[in-house]
């Protein structure tokens, strides 16, 4: 590295920006072709990752974890104690997250997850994050005016609630455990999982709706 690596990388970015095709799709296509030619990429592996994240890995993996925690108090205790280890018990939990922390919503506590510096997110459990999670509006405002942000998501919190924002600055990945709503007594795990939304596991949704559940 030269004495001023920041300048060097910045210069490379500028050069790339003026030479690469402006359309993202064309940039990606050129990158894929080049990596294959360079012996750095097997296109069949790209297909396999697309399939995994389009069909298998996604919010339903997180929903299964939440439903299990609602039904099994011992699992819930293990999940809150050490999320990484507890999730290994799940068949459908998705890929591993090495440092998973599960944070619980209660009547008195609401949790909201953000990554102000980039876009850290438990991909392997929730799938790729929504665009809004990666954009400046959410990243800038979630830590400073979370109640206003939550109102935009249709969530109005009680005035006296303990509101905790988790800024994912390290390799710990945070997953919110939402509250089980009333009216779901006696439901099995699968039915419970069907009412757990992606946003409820980020914290931008709070009151889950039993009528959204599959019978």
């Amino acid at each position, binding site marked *: 590295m030269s004495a001023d690596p920041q300048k060097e990388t910045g210069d490379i970015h500028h050069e790339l920006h003026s*030479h690469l095709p402006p359309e993202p799709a064309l*940039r990606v296509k050129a990158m894929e072709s080049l990596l294959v030619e360079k012996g750095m990429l097997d296109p069949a592996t790209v297909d396999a*990752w697309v399939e995994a*994240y389009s069909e298998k890995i996604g919010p339903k993996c997180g929903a299964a974890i939440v439903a299990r925690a609602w039904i099994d108090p011992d699992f819930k205790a293990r999940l809150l104690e050490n999320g990484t280890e507890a999730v290994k018990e799940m068949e459908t939990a998705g*890929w*591993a997250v*090495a440092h998973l922390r599960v944070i619980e919503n209660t009547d008195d506590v609401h949790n909201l997850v953000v990554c102000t510096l980039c876009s850290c997110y438990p991909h392997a459990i929730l799938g790729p994050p929504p665009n809004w999670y990666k954009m400046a509006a959410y990243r800038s405002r979630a830590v400073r005016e979370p109640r206003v942000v939550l109102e935009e998501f249709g969530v109005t919190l009680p005035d006296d609630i303990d509101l905790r924002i988790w800024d994912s*600055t390290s390799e710990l990945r945070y997953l919110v455990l939402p509250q089980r709503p009333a009216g779901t007594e006696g439901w099995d795990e699968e039915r419970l999982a069907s009412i757990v939304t992606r946003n409820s596991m980020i914290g931008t949704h709070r009151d889950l709706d039993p009528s959204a559940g599959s019978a």
Partner: protein
Amino acid sequence: MDGIHDLGGRQGFGKVDVGEKEEAFHSDWEARAFAIVRAMSKPSNWTLDKFRFTREQIDPVNYLSRPYYDQWIQSYAALMVGSGVASVEELASGKSSGAAVDLGTPRGPESVAAEKDHAAAQFERPYDAPFKFEKGTTVRTLPHAHKGHTRLPSYVRGHEGQVIEVRGAFIFPDESAEGVERAEPLYTVAFDAGDLWPGEDLDHAVHIDLWESYLEPV
């Protein structure tokens, strides 16, 4: 680095797009870009922090306006150029003008299923020295950062907070971005939003994971 990426607490970005359709990818190229990054061979010194630092150095206009996965591709392209793996011309044309890069056989599709059986990358490391702080300790963050990569966001710098969890010793990102692997104690620190932004009538807490060398005793 005091870059545009350090967005916590900044103002003027408008409302969150809450109407976004809920789907894994919004276009084929997004899915392709995401999967290429998972599947491609990478030299061992392309750490996650080096990648993050590379993305942070995209110029601010592009950082705020180019699509997210386009920025991933842009950042890997910059890493390839910076490491001598490819030229700008090759990345523009998609055609290799030099020899293949020897990083071993690229991972096959079976590696996708196999990943389920392995823990994802581990960032915790053994650590023999004593931890400086414990749960309940009041700490103060450094008032400024440095020009390299850091995970100490500007909005908490120079503020007092309380250690609420001791997480263990984790790879220190500021040095990992420069290719040096060294572990340091990591703490989750709680700040009162009312201290971070006085006069705004805020009652929430912000919890952030911070490495030991970002913190001073009070």
